């Protein structure tokens, strides 16, 4: 049975909803708009004829899963939203892409057969393999540098850093010329068909290359490969770079240099609440820097303000500024574990249209980049 045919209410047992509104009470979108997750569920339950998929509000959800963690009826609201969006797409309705459709178009292009890509030229000087058991799944990183040029997100640096870290531990990862977008954003925008095409292509490719273990430097790729690909039958071990690095440090294969730099960590929702990975990024950070926690951490962490590049606006900026101020209150460096969190935060940091007090002077850096720097520092 495909997702489109699944009944969101039946699948998520949303009929257990007691309309307590706890979801709305914690939702970061509700706090800045009229949006109410409870009302969405109520509409699906009580007015099936009105078809909640036609409600433009379904595109407001960030799928950050804060609500899922507090629901007394254990309703997985973000799964509900995912299925409702897929129904909307079936009817030809889609959410607005904050980048004018550029990113989703690229992802859909990658779903085409016979696509010839040139996506490994950045590996020059790094030690990568054409095939083997361990793969580094790069994801959209090389594209982001081009799309978000003005923000200087250094996403390609995340990719290079990840390979550097693996190389330093004696690992020569596969970096594939035929890798395609993991499909995360399409899945969460309701385009399940394109997501599945991408997933099947990637799974097939991994099999052909003899890959058994995939390392990602992106929280979204991590969740998608480890959960959504698994549902499609993928039999691969998936590790986020923080998990791989911690393992390698523990085995004595990776030597890192500690510094007294004070850093704080922003838990990416895909790694944290979606996947339950909270401690490995912290443990590995503690080997290279002085980690201080923000008041909202781990399961309580705030969202970076945008999900799947849908809906970005004043409320997203409010969420981001709140988080940046929270980070600035405890440290001078904010470490991200997902390139998209970094892009969204840097966007808010660089936004000249934001009125009121300016966000604090923060360095925003990815965990992989920080790890690579600690290698160089170790060599000196």
């Amino acid at each position, binding site marked *: 049975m495909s997702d489109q045919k699944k009944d969101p209410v039946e699948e998520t047992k949303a009929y257990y909803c007691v*309309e307590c509104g*706890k979801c709305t009470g*914690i*939702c970061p979108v509700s706090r800045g708009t009229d949006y*109410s997750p409870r009302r969405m569920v109520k509409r699906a339950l009580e007015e099936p004829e009105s078809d909640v998929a036609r409600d433009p509000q379904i595109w407001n959800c960030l799928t950050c899963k804060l609500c899922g963690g*507090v629901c*007394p*009826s*254990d309703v997985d609201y973000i799964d509900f939203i995912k299925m409702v969006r897929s129904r909307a797409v079936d009817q030809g309705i889609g959410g607005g892409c904050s980048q004018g459709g550029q990113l989703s178009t690229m992802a859909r292009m990658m779903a085409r057969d016979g696509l010839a890509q040139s996506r490994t030229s950045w590996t020059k000087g790094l030690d990568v393999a054409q095939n083997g058991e361990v793969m580094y799944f790069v994801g959209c990183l090389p594209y982001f540098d081009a799309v978000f040029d003005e923000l200087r997100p250094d996403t390609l640096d995340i990719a290079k850093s990840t390979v550097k870290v693996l190389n330093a531990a004696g690992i020569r990862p596969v970096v594939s010329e035929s890798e395609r977008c993991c499909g995360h954003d399409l899945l969460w925008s309701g385009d399940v068909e394109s997501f599945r095409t991408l997933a099947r292509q990637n799974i097939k490719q991994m099999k052909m290359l003899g890959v058994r273990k995939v390392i990602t430097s992106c929280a979204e790729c991590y969740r998608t490969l480890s959960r959504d690909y698994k549902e499609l039958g993928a039999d691969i071990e998936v590790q986020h770079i923080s998990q791989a690095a911690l393992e390698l440090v523990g085995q004595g294969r990776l030597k890192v240099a500690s510094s007294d730099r004070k850093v704080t960590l922003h838990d990416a929702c895909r790694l944290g609440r979606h996947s339950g990975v909270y401690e490995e990024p912290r443990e590995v950070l503690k080997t290279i820097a002085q980690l201080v926690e923000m008041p909202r951490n*781990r399961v309580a962490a705030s969202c970076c303000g945008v999900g799947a590049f849908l809906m970005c606006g004043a409320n997203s900026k409010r969420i981001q500024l709140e988080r940046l101020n929270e980070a600035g209150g405890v440290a001078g460096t904010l470490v991200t574990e997902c390139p998209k969190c970094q892009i969204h935060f840097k966007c808010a940091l660089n936004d000249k249209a934001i009125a009121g007090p300016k966000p604090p002077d923060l360095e925003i850096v990815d965990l992989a980049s920080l790890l690579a720097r600690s290698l160089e520092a170790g060599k000196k």
Partner: protein
Amino acid sequence: MKDVLVIGGGVAGIQAALDLAEKGVKVHLVERTPSIGGRMAQLDKTFPTMDCSICILAPKMADCADHPNITVHTCSELTALEGEAGKFRATVLGHARHVDASKCTGCGKCVEACRMKGRIPNEFDFGLRKRGAIYLPFLQAVPRVMNIDDKRCLLLRTGKCGDKQLCKEACERGAIDFDQKDQTVALDVGAVVVATGFDIFDPSGMFEYGYGRFANVRTAMEYERLICASGPTGGHLEVEPTKEHPRSMAFIQCVGARDLRRSPFCCSVCCMYATKEAVLVKEHYPDTECTIFNVDMRALGKGFEEFVDRARDEYGVRFVRARPGQVTEDPGTKKLTVWYEDPELGKVKSMPADIVVLATALVPHPGTAALAKVLGIELDEHMFFKVKDPLMSPVESTRPGVFIAGYCETPKDIPESVAQASGAAARAYEVLAKEKGGAARA
């Protein structure tokens, strides 16, 4: 006639023991902690009559201790129950108090002398007050005998307490006995009444409410101690860090209860005690705003609905149909904000609160499974003791001769616990009477 064993010295156990003792039966009342009294002793007032809880309970506790037919075994637990209805052999392990109960007068001189004085969180007040290694659990404790916490006493833990043992020196009656050993007693009993009550769900795992991180978020049981005249603050509610009395209070219901991932059942008493707690705030500070967040009001007992009406109409307690999604704290002022969905508007709303009180789930004790094994009785899916037939045998466990009373069977309030305890006592008596009659015929 055979004796009866009652396990648990809360109001249900006390009632069962007194009922049986009055019938001329010898009762062994076994209590895990150093004093009988249980949860009722920790409450400030009872609903809906607003009686002082300990004022009602304390005379019953004293009756238990003084009754010629009741032997109270504190610091004790059941370790084995062999035999069958009418002829059980119970093994009870009594942990050493390290204080000779026959000599101690409860004068408290040892308490003043203890080097650990004021350094150990007091269980009775949920850590809101500190005690020493030798202590009286609470003011009205029965028996009024000091107790040494062997895990915290310097001498018992490390073998050394300065150059001399100050408590021993302070005691004029030579009651302190560091060599006292745990003791096991075997009791021949005809029937058993189990009344072990409940434990309190720890809400620190529910990040959304900030318990344990935010100074002004309290559990309802902590609140009971704080509003109590004999409590840690003498009955004054104090907002951290200013110590001023609260201007606005929020009560959040069903915290960990009616929650499919935690305790799915209704704890049955929280709607009423929250109403009572809000009324108490109003009686102390009439200008303080009180809001109770609950998804529905369960006021099923005698006079309960009227009590809720009075709370709303006469005292001005506000009831909002919602479960708040989050409590946030201003790190500087420690002021709280409660975020919830306004049920009428269908939009998120917030209200400032000086103190937030969480009506945490009341759950079976963590030791329930082990006790059930010792007793040879079954548990239900929520770890409450199972009754043979909830309709027609609501006090009989799944083992003949073992009866159940109070919250440990299923959530219930004080009057229901007392009624069930009297029922269990009557059924236990039946077993003894049958046994006696049988013996006579033989």
